[in-house]
């Protein structure tokens, strides 16, 4: 529903002929406050259509304009960097990836939202994603307790297992809870016309690093000893890491397409919707393309589940959520307009609309709504399970450098250029060097033999 800060429409709606009056006065006269247009920089993602639709809804409901500057992932990041480092940002709202938000936080580029409106706070039903919307500039730490509110979550982007539920039903299986089970099912479903499983392994800004994360965590390993606690001792080259990467490589080479080392998210979606793939791992938002009869040959056939893990270890989907932040270097009117949009966006009613429009909500209000219980929205039921389990990979601004090392090492292992052990050892050495050069207390496990 529309969020009106003034009670004007509430009164008018009780009067007969209000609709005519609305059209006569024009929508803007009846909205909360007329705001300057909000210019948003955003990336091209599976959830973009839903976000664009909700931006249109905002204009429809409030009369205020939101324009989207849509870019490829890396292009959006570059535009955001240029915008915040210039004398005045051309963007009023930055849709920042959960991998790169520390760069924006540590750089001091974002306006604390309470500086714009002291009364503003996150809606109680909004997921907090490990406290990542808050940042303490003095202690350089993430968290609600001591940090200033800098951003509002706009997309959960939690990874889910996408699988052919129809084939599972035929075989009387339930969603796999361990990697062994996943491999066995993928092997059983592999035919000349269908790959058992495919996952991203291509090198990109952040691709295989994100997709491999649930594996290493699921095997009981980690990239760093305790990144949430600020302990960046490198542990990727652990025995658990070896087991996890070997599993990832085996699945790719034995049960996946020939070009496993070059697969992108788009390739995975294409394989899945054309019926050529039995399992994959994708961000939840990709669900919208699975049941679109214009794009998909597997309408109603895809099931969603949280990712497997080995006994004793929790399922740990990778958190790659998106956060909306307002740059410091824009006029006050633009800051207020951007915050007004975020405030409207985070409201429970809007979040349900966001889900209805094909977006990926960030509020429990949507995931616990009746809408989530419908069979066609079954991904939301998986999200309810996966969201509290999701974990971020790091909270430091050196993320881009860390990711580059892991993208290369993991990709080379899948491509067969180097062995799993060499990949893990070389990544560990390179990660330690980046962290040491940046001044962190670090170290790494002894090389695997």
């Amino acid at each position, binding site marked *: 529903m529309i969020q009106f800060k003034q009670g004007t429409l509430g009164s008018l709606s009780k009067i007969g002929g209000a609709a005519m009056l609305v059209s006569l006065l024009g929508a803007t006269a009846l909205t909360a406050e007329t705001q300057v247009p909000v210019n948003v920089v955003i990336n091209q993602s599976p959830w973009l259509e839903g976000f664009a639709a909700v931006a249109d809804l905002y204009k429809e409901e409030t009369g205020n304009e939101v324009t989207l500057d849509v870019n490829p992932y890396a292009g959006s990041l570059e535009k955001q960097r240029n915008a*915040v480092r210039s004398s005045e940002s051309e963007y009023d709202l930055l849709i920042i990836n959960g991998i790169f938000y520390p760069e924006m936080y540590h750089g*001091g580029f974002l306006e604390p939202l309470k500086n714009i409106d002291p009364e503003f706070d996150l809606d109680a039903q909004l997921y907090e994603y490990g406290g990542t919307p808050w940042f303490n500039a003095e202690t350089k730490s993430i968290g609600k307790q001591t940090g200033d509110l800098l951003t509002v979550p706009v997309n959960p982007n939690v990874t889910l297992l996408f699988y052919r539920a129809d084939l599972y039903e035929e075989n009387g299986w339930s969603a796999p809870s361990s990697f062994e089970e996943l491999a066995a099912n993928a092997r059983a479903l592999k035919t000349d016309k269908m790959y058992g499983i495919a996952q991203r392994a*291509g*090198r990109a800004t952040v691709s295989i690093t994100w997709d491999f994360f649930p594996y290493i965590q699921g095997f009981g390993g980690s990239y760093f000893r305790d990144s949430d606690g600020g302990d960046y001792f490198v542990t990727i080259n652990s025995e658990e890491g070896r087991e996890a990467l070997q599993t990832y490589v085996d699945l790719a080479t034995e049960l996946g397409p020939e*070009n496993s*080392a070059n697969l992108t998210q788009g390739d995975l979606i294409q394989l899945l919707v054309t019926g050529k793939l039995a399992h994959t791992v994708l961000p939840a938002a990709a669900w919208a393309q699975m049941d679109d009869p214009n794009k998909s040959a597997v309408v109603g056939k895809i099931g969603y589940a949280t990712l497997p893990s080995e006994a004793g270890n929790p399922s740990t989907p990778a958190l790659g959520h998106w956060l909306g932040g307002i740059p410091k270097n824009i006029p006050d009117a633009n800051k207020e307009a951007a915050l007004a949009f975020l405030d409207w966006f985070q409201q429970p009613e809007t979040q349900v609309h966001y889900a209805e429009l094909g977006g990926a909500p960030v509020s429990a209000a949507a995931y616990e709504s009746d809408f989530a219980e419908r069979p066609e929205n079954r991904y939301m039921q998986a999200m309810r399970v996966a969201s509290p389990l999701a974990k971020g990979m790091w909270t430091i601004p050196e993320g881009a*450098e860390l990711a*580059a090392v892991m993208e290369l090492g993991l990709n080379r292992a899948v*491509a067969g*250029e180097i062995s799993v052990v060499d990949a893990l050892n070389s990544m560990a050495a390179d990660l330690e060097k980046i962290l040491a050069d940046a001044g962190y207390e670090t170290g790494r496990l002894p090389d695997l033999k």
Partner: protein
Amino acid sequence: MAHHNSLGKVLSLTPAVLIFAFLALLPVINLFIVSFHEISWLGGTKQMDWVGVDNYVAIGDDPLFKAGVFNTIIVVLVATTAQVVIGLGLALACSSVGDKSRPFRALIILPLLIPGIVIGAIWRLMYNSEFGIFNLVLETIGLSGHDWLGSSSTALAAVIVVDVWHWMPFAFLLLLAAVESLPRDVSEAAKIDGATAWQEFRKVTLPLLYPAIFMTFLFRAVMASKIFDEVFLLTGGGPGTSTEVVSFTIFQRYFLQDNAGYGSALSVSIIFVVSVIIVIALNANKSKGLSQ
């Protein structure tokens, strides 16, 4: 009087020199300065920390850069040679046909006019392992398809094919101009002396074309050393490092990882190496008396 004249000439060049310095040298000097720094951001403010030659020292340990140099050398040698050989063959063929070859000339130079992004789309479709034309042809004749861009064994070759297709017309245009400007009387004299077509080509045409071939090769080699868009659009440097090239390494280090200091050091190194190679090549050419 002569002194005044030469001073006047020097002074008259000053504006051009200043503009050149501003447009060409200043950015390179700035790049050079940044390459000795590490740049970070704190409180919305840029911090430039002097790190001496650390960025240059780090180049030796960069696995991407090493792979990039190796692959770039392969691209330069293979693609440039192919472009010059094919371009020369087509130039000679078109020249011998004369004006009737004009429609073919237009067709030959077409790839040169197509934007890089469109070339990426065209070839990505053609190489597609599921529905690309190459695999459709292979399957039609009973052979199994191949993932040209996704396989480490063929990805670089696939990129080189695109580069040859894209830039061969450039070599063709330069060499066609050279072929058309060859003195006819020498060829006619050779024919009168009883030279066969092959002898005429080897003993007369080729030596006369050496300077043009050399300059075409040099031009294309320098351009090929900067290869970026084909790699960016088709493979992203992968699988693994099989199509990593130096320009793509710089893009990743400088832009994606936001490491301006190190990215500048890589850029300066490449500018230096390419400049040295050009100077050596030009001097070698000059010493052989081939330049015109």
